């Protein structure tokens, strides 16, 4: 059973290598869907096992607990839906000449590698391995960001790889410090393993851990898109091919958060909940505030979504920072909710952009008329991102709010609410203008690929489902995850 943990990332790697030899688009799509859905199934099994055993471990460095399961679930869900969406999307791209037939294998292989690296990141117990794979995600995804090889794409890729690598190297430094702290606290065997360090967190030298955590927060925070280290994010997420954007925004930045959460746990153990919590709170609110003006006056659809990711990462950090069982619960829940919604909206954006041949939102009109499904999903997604029920994000934001009020962070909450309302205004303004009205006759109507609609509907179902209820299973997972995070 526990061997699944290393089989899981092996699946996409193998498939990816196989893909390099395949030329046919349909077959590639098939392989893509097959591997991702296999991942889905395996994740399901792993989750069940973890729920029974509490945690799983394989070959000393692969480890899965409730937190891992949360992130695994998100990655699996998004990979599957993205794979399905890619079918229709890729057909359009190839038809419109946006993607050369011969480069398809490379694209799909890279995607698989990307997914594999993300999987290992959240499965790694060894913090060094976590760092290595995190860097690997940067490299693979950077290639995908620049895949179109046009000037903007390459610029975005360059900014992305340079800035995040810097961040990551900070992360490495932090890791080293914590490792040193652990080593000196007397951990000889597996002094780099999260489980070991977390177990002995209370004996670590708080001063080292403090500096270490700062490096980690800034470093991995850069990759997670926390302001003010976020500036590469809108560039990269707006330039990447749509399915990749969905994965970047939905899953990848969450992996960086996973890293932060791991060290957060250690920091809580070493220097008490106050320190790391307050830092997260600070950067959370900064991110929310920093994202607002760019969302309000944004013209580029995908950049808008990028800045939205910044805001929502901020909200997650806010939840973690407010802390306590409730705040952490809210944060973890928000990880899932935002991932799902953001992927959905990126899918919609892809459709809109292909349809209207533009990124500027002012030129997009009457989307509902042009593409009934995508248009409706656009409004649903917008309202969900804006935090209205019955969509999932409302629930997690509600919980963040409640935790904040319970913690008497009145000022933070006030700022948070102001920004959320402003962002709401901006978002509904943009979405409404795009969705309603009459599209100009040049715009093709209907003809939405079934695969795309299917992928989006899957996400919508999850989005609304989680908005209307949190099934007991999920609740237990999250509660466990909270315990792990808070180090009980």
């Amino acid at each position: 059973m526990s061997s699944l943990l290393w089989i899981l990332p092996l699946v996409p790697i193998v498939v990816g290598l196989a893909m390099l030899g395949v030329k046919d688009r349909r077959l590639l799509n098939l392989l893509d869907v097959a591997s991702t859905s296999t991942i889905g199934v395996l994740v399901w099994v792993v989750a069940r096992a973890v729920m029974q055993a509490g945690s799983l471990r394989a070959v000393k460095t692969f480890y899965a607990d409730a937190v891992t399961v949360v992130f695994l679930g998100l990655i699996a869900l998004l990979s599957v839906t993205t794979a399905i969406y890619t079918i229709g999307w890729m057909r359009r791209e190839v038809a419109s000449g946006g993607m050369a037939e011969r480069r398809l294998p490379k694209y799909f292989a890279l995607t698989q590698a990307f997914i594999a690296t993300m999987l290992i990141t959240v499965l790694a117990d060894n913090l060094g391995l976590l760092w290595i794979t995190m860097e690997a995600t940067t490299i693979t995804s950077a290639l995908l960001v620049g895949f179109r090889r046009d000037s903007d794409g390459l610029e975005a890729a360059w900014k992305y790889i340079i800035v995040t690598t810097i961040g990551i190297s900070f992360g490495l430094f932090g890791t080293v410090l914590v490792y040193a702290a652990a080593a000196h606290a007397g951990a000889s065997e597996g002094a780099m393993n999260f489980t070991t360090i977390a177990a002995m967190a209370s004996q670590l030298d708080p001063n080292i851990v403090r500096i270490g955590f700062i490096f980690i927060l800034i470093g991995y925070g850069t990759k997670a898109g926390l302001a003010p280290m976020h500036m590469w994010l809108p560039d990269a997420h707006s330039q990447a091919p749509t399915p990749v954007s969905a994965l970047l925004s939905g899953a990848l930045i969450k992996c960086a958060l996973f890293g932060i959460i791991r060290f957060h746990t250690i920091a809580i153990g070493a220097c008490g909940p106050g320190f790391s919590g307050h830092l997260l709170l600070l950067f959370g609110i900064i991110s929310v505030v920093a994202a607002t003006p760019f969302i309000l006056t944004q013209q580029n659809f995908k950049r808008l979504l990028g800045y939205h990711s910044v805001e929502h990462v901020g909200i997650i950090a806010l939840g973690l920072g407010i802390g306590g069982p409730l705040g952490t619960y809210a944060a973890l829940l928000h990880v899932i909710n935002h991932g799902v919604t953001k992927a959905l909206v990126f899918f919609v954006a892809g459709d809109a952009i292909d349809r209207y041949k533009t990124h500027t939102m002012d030129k997009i009109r009457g989307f509902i008329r042009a593409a009934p499904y995508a248009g409706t999903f656009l409004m649903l997604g917008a309202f969900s991102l804006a935090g209205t029920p019955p969509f999932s994000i409302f629930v997690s934001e509600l919980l963040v709010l409640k935790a904040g009020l319970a913690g008497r962070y009145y000022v933070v909450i006030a700022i948070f609410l102001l920004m959320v309302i402003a962002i709401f205004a901006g978002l509904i303004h943009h979405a409404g203008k795009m969705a309603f009205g009459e599209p100009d006759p040049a715009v093709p109507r209907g003809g939405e690929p079934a695969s795309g609609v299917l992928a989006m509907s899957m996400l919508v179902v999850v989005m609304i489902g989680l908005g209307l209820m949190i099934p007991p299973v999920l609740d237990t997972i999250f509660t466990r995850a909270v315990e792990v995070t808070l180090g009980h």
Partner: protein
Amino acid sequence: MSLDLAAHLIDIIGAFLLITMIVILEAGDLYRAIYTMAVQSVFIALAGAVLGAATHNTDLWVIAGLTLVVKVFVLPWLLLRVIHRMRIHHKIEPLIPVTATLAIAAAIVMLAFYLSSSLVSLKQVITGNALPIGIALMLIGILVMMSRRTALMQMVGLFASENGIFFTAMAISQGMPLIIEIGVTLDVILGALVMGVIILRVKSSIGSDIADLDQLKG
């Protein structure tokens, strides 16, 4: 070799590392920057060797060798190839005046010492200033990246600052586990390759230095 001798040597090496870093920082010429980076890496390798000798930790020897191969030969060679392929003039125009950068570097060094003065427990491992120098190296490396225009200097700065991390790792905890070190080095090489590819692609398609692109904003 006894521990305190090792500590003494490490101290000296640290000093050299700082010096090389400052040379990189105010280097007005790509070639010089790259060669200095190589030299700096030699010192890293040396540090590894010294520690290895001192602590009889064979891993450290391997790490030292690895550093020697990768940082001293592979990466510089890669950078030089890129320069060659790009056929760019190898003068470096700074975005921030060199004096200013030096001042900032000084500030960074002081910050590094200020910080590490609180880390009492680590002092016992290796006497001397390994940790503050490591921090300083890393941060100054980033400073190089932000203060020099060409993309290649950014790569140089990145590797230099990674040197800082390696140095710290060795100094305060006799390096990370071997397998991790290898993985990290692998990442560095891969990253370097990808960066090089991107740089060349931009040069060939747009004909400009990628670090100058600022189309995406707001």
